[in-house]
């Protein structure tokens, strides 16, 4: 009984905790810090923290306070955390969002309260089109852009036919549609698997093998990418049909995919070895601050999000009530991005280059991602026409 009261008291106290009154810049960060995909959230947080270190933990002389919230990869939880950050913590910016469905669920809360939301990963087509908002910016891409680049590359390679495999959810369909929109050869098969529960792709691989296609294209983010590559290699298909990917091989999955990933190409707007000075500093300091880890594109996008916020707050001299001026500044993308220079479309989605990445052994004999070529320059998403802004 006493315990119950004590607990209730503690709860009341924790909930009644007054917001920090000090003059600071408050940023909410919603990502996945628990469950099987927590590694992605951790990388985003690491990179965001590193960006703050590089900014001296201050923006325009004001201390920065970041509140990290875990969405557990669930849309309703993400929405609830977004509400908490906006209503209870009264943050100036809200950043993060790995998953399209979590972002779509949370979007309305942010837009209605006129809080700037910066998506550091998720890029559903609605965000670029009909749901675009003055208060929403992306430091990543729109889903279709990356596979479109891959389709273009496959044309360049002279691939004649492809078998497509992807998970049965919106991003999965966006990805396969993206490849189909640019790939000029024949699509001999298209398979969707149950997401996220299906991990055994034997039935799909058998079909792909027997389809006599020239190539296979897959999109499997996170752990599913590890399983797909394992099974692809074990079935002996690697020697027969080359694989092309989007978001399937990154610095988080590579240590688990190991040699299976060797020589499998992917498309990306950022690769760890891009030769600009900001990126070198980012990657080097990241590896120094977090030994044994390498930053991923998720991290790079989060790092950029911090820089984007910095540019906006500096432009209004720390007065975060000047929303229009901050919006105008952010639209200029006036900061040094680790992906190199890019512009914003009127829908606040980057217009940027996409690169071909390959998996190679680096000087220490370790597997690493390497930029091989630029596939497309200044790629813009195909949904900007549907955005009513401007």
């Amino acid at each position, binding site marked *: 009984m006493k315990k119950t009261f004590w607990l209730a008291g503690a709860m009341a106290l924790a909930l009644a905790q007054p917001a920090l009154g000090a003059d600071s810049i408050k940023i909410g960060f919603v990502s996945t*810090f*628990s*469950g*099987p*995909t*927590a*590694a992605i959230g*951790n990388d985003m947080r690491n990179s965001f923290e590193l960006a703050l270190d590089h900014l001296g933990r201050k923006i325009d002389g004001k201390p920065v306070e970041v509140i990290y919230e875990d969405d557990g990869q669930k849309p309703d939880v993400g929405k609830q955390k977004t509400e908490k950050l906006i209503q209870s913590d009264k943050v100036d910016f809200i950043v993060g969002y790995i998953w399209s469905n979590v972002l779509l669920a949370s979007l309305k809360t942010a837009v209605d309260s006129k809080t700037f939301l910066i998506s550091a990963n998720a890029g559903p087509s609605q965000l670029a089109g009909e749901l675009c908002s003055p208060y929403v910016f992306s430091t990543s891409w729109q889903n279709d852009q990356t596979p479109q680049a891959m389709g273009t590359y496959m044309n360049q390679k002279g691939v004649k036919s492809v078998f497509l495999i992807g998970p*049965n959810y919106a991003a999965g*369909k966006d990805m396969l549609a993206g490849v189909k929109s640019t790939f000029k050869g024949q699509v001999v098969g*298209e*398979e*969707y*698997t*149950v997401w996220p*529960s*299906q*991990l*055994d792709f*034997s*039935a*799909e691989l*058998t*079909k792909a093998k*027997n389809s006599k296609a020239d190539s296979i294209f897959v999109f499997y983010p996170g*752990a599913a990418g*590890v*399983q797909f590559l*394992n*099974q692809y*290699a*074990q*079935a*002996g298909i690697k020697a027969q049909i080359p694989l092309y990917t989007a978001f399937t091989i990154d610095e*988080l999955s590579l*240590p*688990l*995919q*190991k040699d299976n990933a060797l020589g499998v190409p992917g498309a990306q707007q950022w690769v760890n070895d891009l030769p600009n000075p900001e990126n070198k500093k980012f990657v080097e300091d990241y590896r120094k601050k977090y030994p044994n880890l390498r930053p991923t594109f998720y991290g790079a996008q989060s790092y950029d999000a911090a820089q984007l916020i910095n540019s906006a707050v500096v432009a209004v001299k720390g007065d975060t009530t000047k929303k229009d001026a901050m919006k105008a500044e952010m639209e200029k993308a006036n900061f040094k991005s680790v992906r190199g220079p890019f512009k914003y479309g009127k829908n606040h989605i980057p217009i940027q280059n996409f690169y071909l990445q390959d998996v190679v052994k680096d000087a220490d004999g370790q597997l690493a991602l390497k930029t091989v070529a630029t596939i497309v320059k200044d790629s813009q998403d195909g949904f900007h026409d549907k955005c009513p802004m401007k």
Partner: protein
Amino acid sequence: MVLVEQSLNGLQFGLLLFLLAAGLTLVFGIMDFVNLAHGSLYMMGAYFAATFTAWTGSFILGVLLALGATLLLGIALEFVALRHLYGRDHLDQVLATFGLILFFNDAVRLIWGPAGLALPLPAWLTVPVQIIPGVYYPAYRLSIIIVALAVAALLYVVVMRTRIGMLIRAGASNREMIGALGINIKLLFTLVFGLGAALAGLAGLMQAPILTVQIGMGENILILAFVIIVIGGIGSIRGAFLAAIFVGMIDTLGRAFLPDLLRMVLSSAAASTAAPALSSMLIYLLMAIVLVVRPEGLFPAAKR
């Protein structure tokens, strides 16, 4: 050719499910205990195997150590917590072991980190082998089939031909009676639970090289295992074996051929969306039908 390969895929998946379901049905049948944490033991088997393989540098040694570790973990778990739940309401057991799932998931995250592990195969298991002319099949998937069949045969011999097996069968049909006969029932229960845990661990580590070693990996497949033991008849190893192969086949063949079948009646886009959802529903539909028509399952263990 495709059909042969897809059937092998189905058989392999079914046998893997059998390994998981066998432990579950043993524990369920003998102790009348619903163990949702069985999926967590499956996960622990995979994590142990990945860790021990990395330490020892040998896949076989790692696997053997992991089997021992899951056996011990199962026994410890039974001793500390779960034995107090025998004879309790099924609801209590469901809730308590649901709590264990939460605990194990976070404990693994704390110990091994959130990223998951890799369990690489020795080179001799990564090549495809020719089983009949023109049909190649991954060696490792073939080895899963062989190991699972061997385990099934061993279980059959142990349960049907040995004294301990006799006690197990007696326990499944009449719990009070073997207690009355002066058998150390507590010890028997602990051993059976440990055996079930080791079987779950074996399933987890066998699938680790093809699927994954990650947090929450046991949850989806656990529900499938429950479906299997309900279809097969709770407590029946034979039922679990047949139902597991049945479910494995339905799942794999459904995924392989349903999209093309649906494309004959639906538009291509609608078919490719509906097919995966429909093929995962098939199994639950099957279970519902079995429960409605034969609530005791297809091959119930003899009762009383």
